[in-house]
């Protein structure tokens, strides 16, 4: 018998054109809570998918209780006692808790195949009691809070007799109290001998729960430490790894008069009491954990889901913004976070995508002017240096970085003062990142006020003149870009 319940050695996984995992190791003891940390894109999710049988590794071995295993599909991993709980809960809102727990492995009577509801309800309630939940198994899933739904997901994992439970950023959408409850449950699991792999961006989670921490960076294994054997600073260096302030071509722009001021903005259930201002030529960073309400604030400014409290002033005049057209008329542009779903029409050419927001300027009395359109599209496409043989090529044929450049070009067609960029470099390769930073820097120099929402510390620290940190729907800190440090931001983002 091995001392490890799960061990992975030299795992490598290559996708066409990219090495997602490069010679990665991992060891998990029985009854251990093991934190897995690393930046976005470090390879954590691919690693999880290898363990749960969604992906098969190209090289390397996996051992379960000392026995070599190979999972061909998720079901095999499930049968071996491995369960994963994802950040976005996948549930059936119209069905009750019991059914959500047992979907796919219902208890049925032998012979008649009748579903044994009583037994299932009883077992579900027993699991819920063990987890300290105080709602009934007959409650409808859709009426529960996100935190309660997560408990159901854990109960689901336990109902399959999982010995290893993987939690992928389970605290991201939870409030402080809710997180506290989750910690308690996770500890309970540990005490009953279940091993937990806990993925989180919050240092708080790690210190509170884990006994060991493993760090990945750029698809590689960096190291494993006892949680108390490594300092905060050392851990950050291990995660970030490179000298910050490279590849960021930030030129100092002249900061002018105020273009936007927001006072006590709020939207029920998402954010409250948000106040800040933005000046010409300034890059204002808006950071915090995923789910802190950053995108919601920006979407309220852009009129996608309007705020229900507070005031928005543009160039000193109070404005009501209830839809994106109004926002654009007031000079606000928005680059959405999800460029494939929200930003672009993938089945269209580059030209038509670029001109969509400004069709009114490119037409006379509603008639399209194809020549004018073509001229604008090709000049803007050059300006943001989209790499393509023709502006008529479909956007779906471009790489992520080039798609993002097209999305940025869409903003430049209108007469804007304020540009809001929501995670502008998410899922973009390093080369294209640098090009996008250059464009952002350029925008500030031209006198736009820029709000940049980002989870990536290095880009926030290097690009922003001022940084706002959000936590649980409120702004918890405002830091001058010159004096900002990673620690200060993390502290404001994670602790009260």
């Amino acid at each position, binding site marked *: 018998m091995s001392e490890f319940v799960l061990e992975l050695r030299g795992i490598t996984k290559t996708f066409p054109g990219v090495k997602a995992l490069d010679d990665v190791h991992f060891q998990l003891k029985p009854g251990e809570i093991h934190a897995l940390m690393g930046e976005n894109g470090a390879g954590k999710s691919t690693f999880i998918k290898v363990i749960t049988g969604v992906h098969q590794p190209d090289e390397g071995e996996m051992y379960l209780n000392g026995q070599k295993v190979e999972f061909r599909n998720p079901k095999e991993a499930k049968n071996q006692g491995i369960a994963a709980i994802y950040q976005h809960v996948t549930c*059936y*809102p*119209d*069905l009750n808790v019991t059914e959500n727990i047992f*979907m796919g492995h219902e208890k049925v009577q032998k012979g008649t195949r009748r579903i044994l509801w009583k037994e299932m309800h009883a077992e579900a309630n027993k699991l819920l009691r063990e987890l300290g939940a105080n709602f009934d198994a007959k409650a409808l899933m859709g*009426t529960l809070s996100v935190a309660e739904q997560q*408990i159901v997901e854990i109960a689901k994992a336990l109902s399959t007799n999982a010995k290893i439970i993987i939690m992928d950023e389970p605290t991201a959408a939870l409030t402080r109290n809710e997180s506290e409850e989750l910690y308690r449950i996770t500890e309970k699991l540990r005490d009953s001998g279940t091993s937990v792999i806990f993925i989180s961006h919050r240092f708080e989670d790690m210190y509170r729960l884990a006994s060991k921490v493993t760090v990945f960076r750029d698809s590689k294994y960096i190291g494993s430490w006892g949680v108390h054997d490594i300092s905060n600073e050392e851990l950050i260096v291990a995660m970030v790894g490179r000298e910050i302030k490279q590849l960021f071509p930030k030129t100092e722009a002249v900061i002018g008069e105020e273009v936007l001021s927001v006072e006590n903005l709020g939207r*029920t259930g998402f954010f409250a009491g948000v106040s800040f201002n933005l000046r010409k030529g300034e890059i204002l960073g808006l950071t915090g954990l995923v789910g802190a309400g950053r995108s919601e604030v920006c979407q309220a400014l852009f009129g996608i889901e309007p705020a229900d409290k507070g005031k928005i002033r543009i160039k000193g005049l109070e404005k009501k913004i209830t839809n994106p057209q109004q926002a654009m008329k007031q000079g606000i542009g928005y680059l959405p976070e999800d460029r494939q779903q929200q930003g672009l029409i993938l089945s269209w050419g580059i030209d038509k995508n670029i001109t969509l927001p400004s069709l009114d300027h490119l037409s006379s009395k509603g008639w399209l002017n194809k020549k004018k359109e073509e001229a604008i599209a090709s000049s803007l496409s050059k300006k943001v240096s989209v790499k393509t043989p023709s502006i008529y090529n479909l956007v779906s044929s471009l790489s992520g970085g080039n798609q993002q450049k097209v999305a940025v070009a869409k903003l430049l067609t209108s007469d804007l003062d304020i540009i809001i960029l929501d995670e502008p470099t998410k899922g973009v390769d390093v080369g294209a990142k640098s090009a996008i930073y250059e464009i952002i820097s350029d925008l500030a120099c031209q006198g736009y006020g820029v709000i940049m929402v980002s989870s990536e510390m290095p880009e926030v620290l290097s690009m922003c003149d001022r940084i706002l940190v959000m936590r649980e729907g409120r702004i918890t800190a405002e830091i001058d870009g010159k004096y900002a440090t990673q620690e200060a931001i993390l502290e404001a983002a994670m602790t009260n």
Partner: protein
Amino acid sequence: MSEKPTAKVSLSASIARFREVGLLGFIILMSIVVQLRNPSFLTLENLNDMITNTAILSILAIGMMLVIITGGIDLSIGATLALSGMITALTVGAYPNLNPIMAILLGILVGIVSGGILGVIISKGGVLPIIATLGMMYIFRGLTFMVSGGKWVSAHQMPVSFKGIATGSFLGINNLILIAVITYLIFFYFINHTRTGRQIYAVGSNPDSAKISGINHDRIIWLVYTLMGGLSGLAGVLWVSKFASAQGDTASGYELTVIAACVLGGVNIAGGSGKISGLILGSVLIGILNNALPLINVSPFWQMGIQGSIILIAVILNALVKRGVDLNALMRRKI
């Protein structure tokens, strides 16, 4: 983690209960008003007529509920009903000694084949339910006219044993009612106590999760349209037997009455939820409405407008209630 779990559970439960109690209350209130205006309403004869009518409607409503739970809709059932009714009527006309049970089975078979074809078109052909069922409605209707040569099958062409299906009784209970009750028991068991039945709800509630849980999505979609077809086939035989006539335009537009019964009974038009108990109340309410309006001298020409308004108001109310619940959930989030 959960500040007021008990309050939450009771909120959702109370809305569901409110709907059913409300429907029941409305039914009773309406019956009283109608009875005061026209004493012939609550007579044994009229009640019998009303309940047997409702029996056919409620059988169809079960199938429609399953279809709507998966997020679909079926506009072809009136035509399927007519087709199976016509084929059965022609068959018993030609072979008067045919056992009534065989006639019922024949009707169900015609329905299953019709529904099965429709199911394949929707699940494998990727045709939107609204378009596929609209197309099949015309095909089935056309076939009905073709097999009958455009003629009616009238009462004197049907053997007494066949007409007895609807008029006869067993242990003092009308056959139609008996058949409806048996159908309800079977389907109650099926959708609540078998894995396949629960998978119908899972597919409607979250199709993506259902695929991850290993549920065969296409098979479930095919199944609900086939079941719907089978029930329409059954209803076709009962209909023709009850009214003792089969025509090309039998039950034309009846699918809309069935949809009205479903949405009134609380079946969510967006899929995922719907209960047998609600269905019974919805069917009974529509049944009473159809029976009572003529009795209180409402012109039959108002019936269509009233029915359409009922559907629209019911779905809008369902949507508003849902909004209220969602807003309530957001308000409870502490920031």
